[in-house]
């Protein structure tokens, strides 16, 4: 499962995500969840960036997050996220494993149905 937005995906993030997912589709085995706020979702809709994200297969939950509300399906054992906050707290609070990656990594992993990471960003310069 890919989870974005701890606690709330921002309008800037919606705008960055839209071109990454436009015309593509998440693998049906992957849940792609975004937690955001009502206001940010409305702004994303007005900016025209919400539709491609929904078409990609993203589910959007408003005004809470996976750490504060029990919304994770029990079969979910591993999360992929670009949020350091989700990555830090999920193992303790949700007993899941975590893979940390960039927004583009999260999208590509959702498309391929396996963890894909651009390791070059982690290499020392």
């Amino acid at each position, binding site marked *: 499962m890919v989870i974005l937005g701890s606690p709330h995906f921002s309008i800037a993030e919606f705008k960055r995500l839209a071109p990454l997912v436009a015309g593509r589709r998440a693998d049906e085995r992957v849940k792609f969840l975004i937690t955001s706020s009502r206001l940010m979702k409305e702004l994303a809709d007005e900016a025209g960036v919400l539709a491609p994200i929904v078409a990609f297969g993203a589910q959007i939950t408003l005004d809470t997050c996976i*750490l504060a509300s029990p919304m994770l399906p029990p079969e979910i054992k591993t999360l992929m996220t670009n949020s350091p906050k989700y990555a*830090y*707290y999920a*193992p*303790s*609070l949700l007993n899941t494993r975590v893979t940390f990656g960039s927004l583009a990594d999260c999208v590509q992993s959702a498309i391929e149905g396996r963890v894909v990471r651009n390791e070059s960003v982690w290499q020392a310069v």
Partner: protein
Amino acid sequence: MAGRVIAGRPIVAGEAEGEALVTHDALSFWGGYDFHTGEIIDKHHPLAGVRAAGRILAVPFSKGSSTTTAVLLEAVRAGTAPAAILTTGADAFFALASIVADVMYGKSFPVIALEPGDFASLVTGARLTIRRDGTIDERPPGGRC
């Protein structure tokens, strides 16, 4: 080894007695402390899996969410909070939990700030007695009670 007296600064004054549980890593109680059990549950923390309820927790400062205060307050209500908290500076999140617990539940716990050198010399298992003026009597672990 004989006992000693440590001069602490009471951020929230009070009396407590118990066994020291010492860590040099900051802790977020939100996501890091289970108020049902009094156990430290942050899997990244060296004290993960250790029960701090009723012990005197020496932790340099809180980190992360301000909800640390709410979790600690719940722990006081549930009877699973540390008996006292020793820090290296005035930690507003810990102090607030104790102050509000006093107002809401009539139960507070001492929060005492120590000089960094004194804090660094603390060891888990020592028996500590905290007095209202912030002084702490320490008996080394394994000593006679």
